[in-house]
């Protein structure tokens, strides 16, 4: 049995009985927000405990297989769906490292126009490109954020570059958090080389190096409050590999608490614990960057799986709210990109090496909401509005044009039973507004469900990400953003977590909860 007072990863099987821990900082969630906050605070000398609901998969256990990874590392086996018009799958990670383990690794800084919008519409005048730059820079240096190299950008990037060049659209390799990437193409199913700098191989090991303890299989359930301070968290630990044995209770007493459950689970936890609910904003303002993809057949061999699946982008239409990014999948889940059936589908799959797939996402003005189901899962409600549907129609036409300009023979839009054999055919078939149910969508970036702001009546946390209602409670994940970002959010979440860690450190020092080397706190 592992000693629970020493630094390291702990799984449910390591906790054989109900346990109480004492620490300075308790972080709930080990994804982009939680891991960064934990590592920063541990590096500043604080004693940190991280509570993670999902399992611990050591990097060497990731096999990059789509169907298996979906089952084991995705929340609800990848079956999480936003209910509405249309129903939109919202895959997210549920494992130590969170979604960073199964995302594409794309990194963007917060766009200037989004910052301007926050300053103008939400009064967040603390934020500017200059004031946030040091935090972005720190994360980028740590994670080796750099553009995808020509050797690993893959065959789809070659096609997109050719098509976008012909049409005069701006395009470039994406920035990613990867070191020594070989372009194995498994980013979304666990990097088999540990090149992608997910939290599992970057910030979390660093946090452990500074003494942090990370508990997997532990679901945060209840906060215990005294006045307007939280003094303990109760978690339920799945005990035993099969999870069938009775769960253990884990109580963590701490001076400060950081909630980083992601924009889907954070509002569920807040609503359950009645924190922030007076604002009326918990679970509201959900944006998700609804996305879609197109597939196209070429005479040439593309070998889309060789290279970084999301290594290239067309950013020409970013200010309109459209970002085009790579979206190739291995044959398992990739088989769903083709809408055909039976023998026709099989014949197309036999030409999989000739297939190119590219996607786009919409910076949404639609909003949705999240409330808890009785069993603690997130009930997501989201309808796509007419403005965003216009963007979908435009996105489909733009990408179709790029594919044909690059020499595609057939293009498959994300619209049922539709195939384009020429641009004229695409224009004539899409000469009317699309209905939400017409388009196959996906979403990877839930944001905004516990937004920050200055006014406690209209926001859940302040610009330091501290709760308006509870003195020692912070929220550090994608839920705090007041609007859609328009770009992949992981780097922004990490930068804000770095910034929030400074605020938590200041709070702890004011509190007198200062860790001194050699004076370990009583941990149990």
């Amino acid at each position, binding site marked *: 049995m592992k000693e629970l007072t020493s630094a390291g990863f702990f799984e449910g099987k390591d906790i054989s009985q109900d346990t109480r821990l004492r620490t300075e900082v308790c972080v709930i969630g080990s994804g982009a927000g939680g891991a960064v906050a934990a590592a920063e605070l541990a590096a500043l000398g604080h004693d940190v405990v991280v509570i993670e609901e999902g399992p611990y998969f050591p990097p060497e256990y990731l096999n990059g297989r789509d169907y298996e990874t979906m089952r084991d590392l995705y929340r609800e086996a990848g079956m999480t769906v936003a209910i509405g018009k249309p129903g939109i799958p919202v895959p997210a990670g549920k494992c130590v490292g969170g979604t960073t383990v199964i995302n594409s690794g794309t990194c963007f800084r917060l766009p200037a126009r989004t910052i301007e919008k926050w300053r103008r519409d939400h009064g967040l005048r603390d934020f500017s490109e200059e004031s946030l730059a040091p935090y972005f820079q720190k994360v980028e240096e740590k994670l080796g954020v750099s553009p995808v190299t020509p050797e690993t950008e893959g065959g789809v990037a070659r096609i997109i570059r050719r098509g976008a060049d012909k049409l005069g659209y701006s395009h470039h390799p994406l920035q990613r958090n990867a070191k020594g990437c070989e372009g194995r193409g498994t980013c979304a199913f666990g990097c088999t080389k540990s090149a992608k700098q997910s939290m599992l191989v970057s910030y979390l090991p660093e946090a452990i190096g500074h003494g942090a303890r990370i508990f997997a299989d532990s679901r945060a359930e209840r906060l215990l409050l005294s006045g307007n301070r939280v003094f303990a968290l109760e978690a339920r630990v799945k005990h035993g590999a099969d999870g069938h044995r009775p769960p253990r209770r884990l109580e963590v007493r701490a001076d400060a608490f950081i909630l980083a459950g992601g924009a889907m689970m954070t509002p569920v936890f807040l609503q359950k614990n009645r924190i922030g609910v007076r604002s009326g904003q918990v679970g509201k303002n959900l944006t998700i960057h609804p996305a879609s993809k197109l597939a196209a057949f070429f005479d040439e061999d593309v070998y889309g799986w060789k290279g970084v699946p999301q290594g290239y982008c067309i950013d020409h239409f970013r200010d309109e709210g459209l970002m085009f990014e790579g979206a190739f999948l291995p044959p398992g889940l990739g088989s769903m990109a083709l809408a055909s059936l039976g023998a026709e589908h099989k014949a197309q799959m036999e030409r*999989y090496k000739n297939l190119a797939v590219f996607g786009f996402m919409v910076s949404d003005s639609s909003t949705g909401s999240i409330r808890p189901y009785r069993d603690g899962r997130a009930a997501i409600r989201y309808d796509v509005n007419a403005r965003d549907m216009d963007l979908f129609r435009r996105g489909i036409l733009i990408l179709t044009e790029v594919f044909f300009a690059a020499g595609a023979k057939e293009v498959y839009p994300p619209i049922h039973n539709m195939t384009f054999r020429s641009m004229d055919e695409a224009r004539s078939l899409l000469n009317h507004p699309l209905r939400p149910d017409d388009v196959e969508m996906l979403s990877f970036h839930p944001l905004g469900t516990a937004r920050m702001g200055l006014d406690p009546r209209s926001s859940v946390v302040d610009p330091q990400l501290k709760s308006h209602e509870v003195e020692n409670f912070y929220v550090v994940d994608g839920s705090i953003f007041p609007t859609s970002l328009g770009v992949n959010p992981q780097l922004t979440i990490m930068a804000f977590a770095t910034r929030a860690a400074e605020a938590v450190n200041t709070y702890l020092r004011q509190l007198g909860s200062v860790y001194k080397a050699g004076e370990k706190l009583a941990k149990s």
Partner: protein
Amino acid sequence: MPHPYPYKVLSASEVRVVHALAETCCPPGQIIKTTPAGALVAERVDWFLEAAPVEGRTAFRFALLALEWSPVFRLLALSRFSRLPPEKREVQLKSWSGSRVWLWRNLLKLLMALVVPAYYADDQVSGQTGFTPPGGRPSRFLAAWKERTGS
């Protein structure tokens, strides 16, 4: 001699529908010749569903039931889906996929989303498309399958 695979979620009749659906969606091709049974599709789907939320499992099983009886109720045939010849099964699937009824389209989407990828997730099948499983790391499903069948 390996034991039969002990299904944990799907019943015998549901396994029959999964097989029928997989055979219709993934018929023998020019290059990819592995059969759905050879690719352990039903076993893989069952293994996947073990980890799925209860609602997901229930919806999938409901979709199988609806598919199985749909030809009879829609008077397309006097036989259940799993007992139809492949060409009639394909007609049934196309009627769902092109249906104006949201429910039929989405039930089919759910079925296809688990069954078709289960076929192409098999190393032999994906290998026939030219794809190589990355990193050479072992399959967790195959390990479970071997353990459960004593192979």
